[in-house]
């Protein structure tokens, strides 16, 4: 359950963004969370709701976009989604795969409100 400490660092970034743009409130937050990021979107949402009380994001809605795991084979160039955590190229069986996306934890967008 490390979602709360991830949300704590999210709020540091939210404060910075609000200050930089002179915003009074944050109305919406959108995160991109990879399937192999190691966090659970539902727990992240509960941690966000717990944390936001009394902050500039008190009324904010959280949107979590889950990013599937996608790899490219360095041997044959095949690109595909990995469903069952088998990190061997389905086309040529090479283990030399590059993870293109699916491990990220990104604050993608904030919706800011001024008076």
């Amino acid at each position, binding site marked *: 359950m490390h979602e709360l400490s*991830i949300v704590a660092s999210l709020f540091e970034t939210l404060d910075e963004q609000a200050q930089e743009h002179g915003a009074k409130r944050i109305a919406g937050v959108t995160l991109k969370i990879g399937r192999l990021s190691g966090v659970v979107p539902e727990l992240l949402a509960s941690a966000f709701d717990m944390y936001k009380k009394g902050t500039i994001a008190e009324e904010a809605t959280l949107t979590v976009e889950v990013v599937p795991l996608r790899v490219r084979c360095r041997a044959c160039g095949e690109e595909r989604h990995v469903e069952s955590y088998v990190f061997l190229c389905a086309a040529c069986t090479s283990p030399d795969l590059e993870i293109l996306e699916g491990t990220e934890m990104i604050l993608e967008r904030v*919706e800011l409100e001024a008076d």
Partner: protein
Amino acid sequence: MTTKDVIVLADLLGTNKKIAADIRTELERRGILAVNLLSSPGAGKTTLLEQIAVRLRDTARMAVIEGDIETERDAERIRAKGVPAWQITTGGACHLEAKMIARILPEVPPESEYLFIENVGNLVCPASYELGESLRFVLLSTPEGDDKPKKYPKAFTTSDVLVLTKADLLPYLPFDLAKVQAEALELNPRLRIFVTSAVTGQGLDELLAFLTAARRDLAARHA
């Protein structure tokens, strides 16, 4: 009231990653091989470190950072082997973060060749936090069962080495060694696997030879 949509694209773990990168640069410059050990509680991380201390003989060559939720017990076990050890008690947090390691770094003796960081016993959360290590070890003990790699994929996909511990119990357990090795390699084809026992000493000389070679390579790269 005006509203504004801002695209941020900030990594939520960006601060931790930056501190970890600085730690890695500093340790590699000092010729210290840092190893981050992950496992569930009771898999044998501290016991493995005791066994490494015995085999390294000159214990001034290693230093250990112990992460636990409470108590100084693990650091005391390591100090009893003559190895400098620091205990981080997280007071409830389920993982170590790079900033906790950064605070201890200035105290690590200059003659150290290895810095082992024993993470909080947990196969989930520590996998998301780089600590500036050069190598990540995941330990899995035979009594935990052979189904763990696929259940906790992140710990296995982000590790360099899998240490299977308590191999002396294999005759008494329904633990399929071939299956666990095959499944771990499906998750991470680059994983090095060592089958070990602290009771019989199985696999420990091989593991030590691997560590020695990794330390030599690191020192040669930064000579």
